[in-house]
């Protein structure tokens, strides 16, 4: 029992970050139909910039926190305006996806230049001993990571369902042409979606760095895992990304614990493939919606 609990905690920690990256994918996907493969890079930006402001510049926590999110938002904004906007009119999705890969290489290059190749970390948000829970141990920072993920999900739900802007973004995700006819500024929606997804990525980075450290090339792995999480749950559905992220995280931990740690990635991937073959639109995805989209 204690063992199982410990494995679950481990899975929840890694799963949270996958879920946050997956949600970031969804937000951009809903407005543009593309997968922003630079999403993982924003997690790295979050962790490294937080270190820069907090440890490098010695700013207080709240200031560093806001500055980091601001930096990520600005980078997301620049990326969208310079690269995605000019391509959006032509609507070549594959080209746009390739551009996001090229940008991720570029961001990695800049980060390597600024921060070098060493890993970075800073103290956990709250000092204190790990919490003992029925014999299993959970660090306080893990609770922060899970808490931030849950908070993100709630805030996004409120934003997309209760505010005018959020509803406009949802309208775009259902039918972009109809949304445009209704007078929604699609270009602005796309811009906003990039900003929101960058900030969410950075949030994940800020929270996870005290646990897992952060170095310039961690983004690619996070992008891949987040991509799998989003697909497994059904693209475009945030609860899908959350379910996908947590299931991949927990599957990995359980495989490591009960079968063998060498196969934890392989078994998580196999189960993902199995789900896709049985339900081609993911757990929460709708096959009818998928038919209408090219990607």
């Amino acid at each position: 029992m204690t063992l199982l609990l410990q494995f679950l905690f481990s899975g929840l920690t890694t799963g949270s970050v996958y879920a946050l990256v997956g949600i970031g994918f969804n937000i951009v996907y809903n407005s543009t139909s593309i997968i922003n493969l630079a999403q993982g890079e924003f997690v790295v930006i979050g962790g490294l910039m937080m270190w820069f402001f907090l440890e490098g510049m010695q700013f207080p926590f709240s200031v560093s926190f806001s500055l980091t999110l601001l930096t990520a938002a600005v980078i997301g904004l620049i990326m969208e305006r310079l690269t995605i906007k000019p391509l959006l009119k032509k609507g070549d999705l594959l080209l746009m996806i390739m551009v996001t890969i090229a940008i991720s290489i570029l961001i990695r290059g800049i980060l390597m230049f600024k921060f070098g190749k060493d890993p970075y970390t800073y103290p956990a948000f709250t000092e204190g001993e790990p919490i003992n829970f029925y014999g299993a141990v959970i660090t306080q920072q893990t609770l922060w990571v899970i808490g931030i993920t849950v908070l993100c999900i709630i805030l996004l739900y409120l934003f997309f369902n209760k505010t005018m802007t959020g509803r406009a973004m949802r309208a775009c995700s259902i039918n972009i042409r109809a949304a445009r006819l209704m007078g929604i500024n699609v270009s602005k929606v796309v811009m906003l979606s990039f900003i929101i997804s960058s900030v969410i990525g950075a949030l994940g980075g800020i929270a996870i760095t005290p646990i897992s450290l952060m170095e310039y090339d961690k983004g690619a792995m996070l992008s891949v895992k987040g991509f799998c999480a989003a697909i497994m749950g059904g693209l475009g559905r945030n609860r899908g990304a959350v379910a996908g992220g947590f299931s991949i995280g927990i599957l990995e931990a359980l495989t490591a614990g009960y079968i063998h740690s060498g196969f934890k990635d392989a078994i998580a991937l196999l189960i993902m493939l199995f789900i896709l073959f049985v339900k081609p639109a993911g757990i929460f995805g709708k096959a009818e919606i998928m038919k209408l989209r090219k990607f």
Partner: protein
Amino acid sequence: MNRENAIAILLLTILVFLFPQLTTDNYILTVGIFIGINSIVAIGLTILMGYAGQISLGQAGFYGIGAYVSAILSLSYGLPVMLSIITAIAVASIAATLLAIPSLRLKGHYLAVATLGFGEIIHIIINEWGPGGPSGFGDIPHFSIFGYTLQSTVEYFYLIWICIILIMIFSLNLLNSMTGKALRAIHDSEIATLTLGINITFLKIKVFVLSAVYASLAGALYAHYVTFLSPSGFSLFYSVLVLMMVVIGGISNIWGGIAGAIIITILPEVLRGFKEFDILMYGLILTLSLLFMRKGIVPMVIDVFRNKFLIKIRKNDA
């Protein structure tokens, strides 16, 4: 095969035979060999993406199967290299068929992730069970045919580029045949093709397997040329690299695969001079190329060429 393509094949053949006469620099020839290996994989992916409209992020998996199966068979079981390469290709095509049947029901991003998952599983398998594990293994036999073993760089250069010429002739003929026309139709509209009574699923599987055959052949050639294998060269990173070659080279033209392979293979070599800046320059050049050469190199060159040519003809007419 139409006239332009026949001329292009002829030009390529001449170039391949002249090239080693012009340079004795083994380094340049080695780069040429790696361009060739990458081209073979990229040609397969171009056909799959540009003509059948399917996306694959799992080419590294087939590339890895080709390399590992052929290397293991010839090293541990003493099979002749030719035979082990053919077996490796057969294994890869079986794997491709098994993967294609369930996954071609998927579309777009879902298909991308399914193939990505396959590629990563192959990567994990060779990392866990491959000879030497993550450290890899060496002493793989060199390529040999009819009792003659290829040793020098020039010989390998010829071997690989003759393979490419044959692959191009085969592919161009295929694309010109009924199959090719049906494929283009799939790319334009699946539903319309279906109503014409063409078996789309079977065609898609065929092309998917073809791309796997090319990738595994390239992998096997790599194994017997470098004679050392480790899992690091067969990760998702390579699949993405091949995808980049195809898009930069031009997805709508089968020659785009070769053009993309040339650029993506040579770029890091040229950027060696920039030392630390190279990853920065690499990202920047890729971004700019994608942003401003949207159709890819080959279609763009053809456009420029046609414009100039047509203007000339018009002037002559006047």
